[in-house]
């Protein structure tokens, strides 16, 4: 684990990892919010929920395009191998994203069918979250590669482990959604979100433990990385930090500190995400293709790094500004952003 070489491919692995992480936490909470729709049967509550994310969801989802597009650009071989391997979950995710994406606009353009677009919003969010989790599990468990192509069947992604990761992502996004609502709403809606936060936090913790216990048994390399001396020095802080953050999270929810639960949940996500990174690095297709094997030629990577270095900070600034413009809690009685 010592002396990680810093070359352009490694830098790009971190950039892609950053884009995917930004996607997970940003779209994570608005997908989670969509999945919680069935728990809020009142139309007025749903209007408020929708309005807390309507001005920003599109920007959130753009990180998914950067993650996928960046993988295509920086690691074309990995993109070409992974996408056919997780073909079905990807198609399912896209279909889920279609339904929930258009629901943002359509539900305000109809009256009689409003309920139907609410179903599309909740169902689409659930389908997208579940598929993303399943895709993650399918990649972690390893996929069959022959030469420069995927060599498995089109159902290889479906295993008990991938179902477990699928449900884990659903629970985690649900937690982000609930804590976001706690932060952005008031009154009964917020109180109900607090109640849901408890359950979702328990579900998320169970999921973290279950995935953490199962992962080292998938591949011998994962086991060595997590439990063997001396690498355990580098891996042990992660579970310790997860425990500390969880305790803080429990306390902030108990004390009803509206803002803290959301940010602590984000930190929890960051920690588990780092754990995944520890398991996978330096492979981009676990145990088959490393980041160096999959990397595009240097001239491609160098060309893009200029853009990333200049543009990503600018993007983060105007994204932060957009969030700032729509800051504060949203009330039911004062209408929404939408007519």
């Amino acid at each position: 684990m010592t002396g990680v070489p810093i070359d352009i491919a490694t830098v790009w692995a971190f950039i892609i990892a950053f884009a995917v992480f930004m996607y997970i936490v940003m779209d994570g909470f608005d997908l989670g919010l969509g999945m919680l729709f069935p728990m809020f049967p009142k139309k007025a509550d749903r209007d408020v929920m929708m309005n807390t994310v309507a001005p920003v969801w599109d920007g959130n989802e753009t990180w998914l395009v950067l993650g996928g597009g960046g993988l295509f650009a920086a690691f074309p071989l990995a993109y070409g191998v992974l996408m056919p391997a997780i073909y079905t979950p990807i198609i399912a995710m896209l279909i889920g994203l279609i339904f929930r994406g258009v629901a943002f606009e359509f539900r305000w353009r109809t009256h009689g069918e409003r309920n139907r677009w609410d179903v599309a919003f909740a169902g689409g969010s659930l389908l997208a979250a579940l598929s993303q989790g399943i895709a993650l599990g399918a990649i972690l468990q390893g996929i069959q590669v022959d030469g420069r192509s995927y060599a498995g069947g089109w159902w290889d992604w479906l295993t008990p482990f991938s179902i477990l990761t699928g449900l884990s992502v659903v629970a985690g996004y649900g937690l982000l959604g609930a804590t976001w609502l706690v932060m952005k709403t008031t009154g009964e809606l917020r109180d109900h979100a607090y109640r849901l936060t408890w359950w979702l936090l328990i579900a998320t913790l169970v999921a973290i433990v279950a995935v953490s216990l199962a992962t080292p048994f998938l591949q011998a390399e994962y086991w060595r990385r997590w439990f063997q001396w001396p690498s355990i020095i580098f891996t042990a802080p992660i579970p310790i930090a997860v425990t500390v953050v969880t305790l803080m999270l429990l306390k902030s929810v108990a004390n009803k500190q509206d803002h803290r639960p959301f940010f602590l949940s984000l930190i929890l996500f960051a920690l588990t995400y780092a754990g995944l990174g520890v398991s996978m690095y330096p492979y981009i297709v676990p145990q088959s293709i490393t980041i160096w094997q999959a990397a595009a030629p240097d001239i491609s990577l160098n060309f893009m790094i200029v853009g990333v270095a200049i543009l990503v900070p600018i993007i983060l600034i105007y994204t932060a500004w957009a969030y700032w413009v729509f800051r504060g809690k949203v009330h039911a009685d004062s209408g929404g952003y939408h007519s």
Partner: protein
Amino acid sequence: MFDGFDAITLARLQFSFTMSFHIVFPAFSIGLASYLAVLEALWLWTGREVFINLFNYWLKIFAVAFGMGVVSGIVMSYQFGTNWAVYSDKAGPIVGPLMAYEVLTAFFLEAGFLGVMLFGLERVGHRLHFFATLMVAIGTLISAFWILSANSWMQTPAGHTVNAAGQFVPDDWWKVIFNPSFPYRLVHMVLAAYLTTAFVVGAVGAYHLLKNSALEGPRVMFSMAMWMAALVAPIQIFAGDQHGLNTLEHQPVKIMAMEGHFTSHPDGAPLILFGLPDQEEGVLKYPIEIPHAGSLILKHSLDAPLKGLDTVPRENWPRVDIVFWSFRVMVGIGFLMLGIGLLSLWARWRGILHEWKLLHRFAVAMGPAGFIAVLAGWVTTEVGRQPYTVYGLLRTADSASPLAAPAVASSLVAFIIVYFIVFGMGVFYILRLMKAPPHHGEEGPSADIPTHAGGLTPAQGVTASAPARG
């Protein structure tokens, strides 16, 4: 539903289907975003209420169309990997960075400022809001820049070498981006987007003028749209002709198919107006043609020789009938657009622009014309590129993912069902929004802005009032 099709045919069908649905939304939102920026600028400049009413009216339509463009675009961005994995591996080092730049410079800009544009008029003030609108409009144009660069490179590849793994490796990014057909394609597409939007706006204006020719909003819309048709349609025809000459130079086989030249013409080629292409026999049946006019248009000389498809091995032919007919549909609509533009100039001169019912009916009928022309043009250029994904270098048959036919067939069926439901409803909602005329005090998507608890005081209510100037 798709028994007997192989995986690659199914992947091509899927790409054509999802792409055909997708392309109409960006074409519409590129034009509409610019139109919205112009309307808001006119409102800020003149203070006339009609402009903000029109802005809010079209903003609601833009929101629905943009949402559909976003979701169908995400499908496109993943489809390269799912269905065209070998292409992704080989062309990724070139096409990937161009698309990554599209995301970094365009998608984030559009998405980041979209929320403020849709919901922020009273939260950020007029000037900052106009800035947001401008950023969204510029974002759509930057997006067109990169995506057409990537597409043009696939049509006229330049600035690259091929490495040991069979990947295309850029050696001069300038040549890759500004490849030989790119400037022509970019101009042609952006003008097409502007014309497409102009004809939608013109049709909506004309529809309401037919019912009440005194309404200010529809009068302004119709007049603006007709100026666009009159000024841009001729420029577009000129740009298209220049693009054609460029294609003749770099993709002659595509021109042979577009023009229907199965045989060579050593003494000057005719201009073939119509005919029935027969791929099997390699002849054009029942041609209606103007002698020597083809050479005149393509080579500016009556007797210039022109090679035909008979000089090209059959396995390198595209589907001639599709290319031949889609090209004629596009050109035909282009001349109809020019026609209505000229009629509108005449009507303006006579002072009957807002009262001439026949012109209004013509404009209503032409409402979807831009979409059809964009689709036909896209079919012409993409089918004309076949049998290659990267022209002359990588065949479509060698680009696909190692997938079983049932996998591609089921995803294709799923996309067809989902697209018809979702986009069918979307078009229905847009048409319903268009059915009501813009009126006094038109509300944007942001009516009833919430007063946040965060202690923020929204700017004074301005939706219907003139902006403070200076």
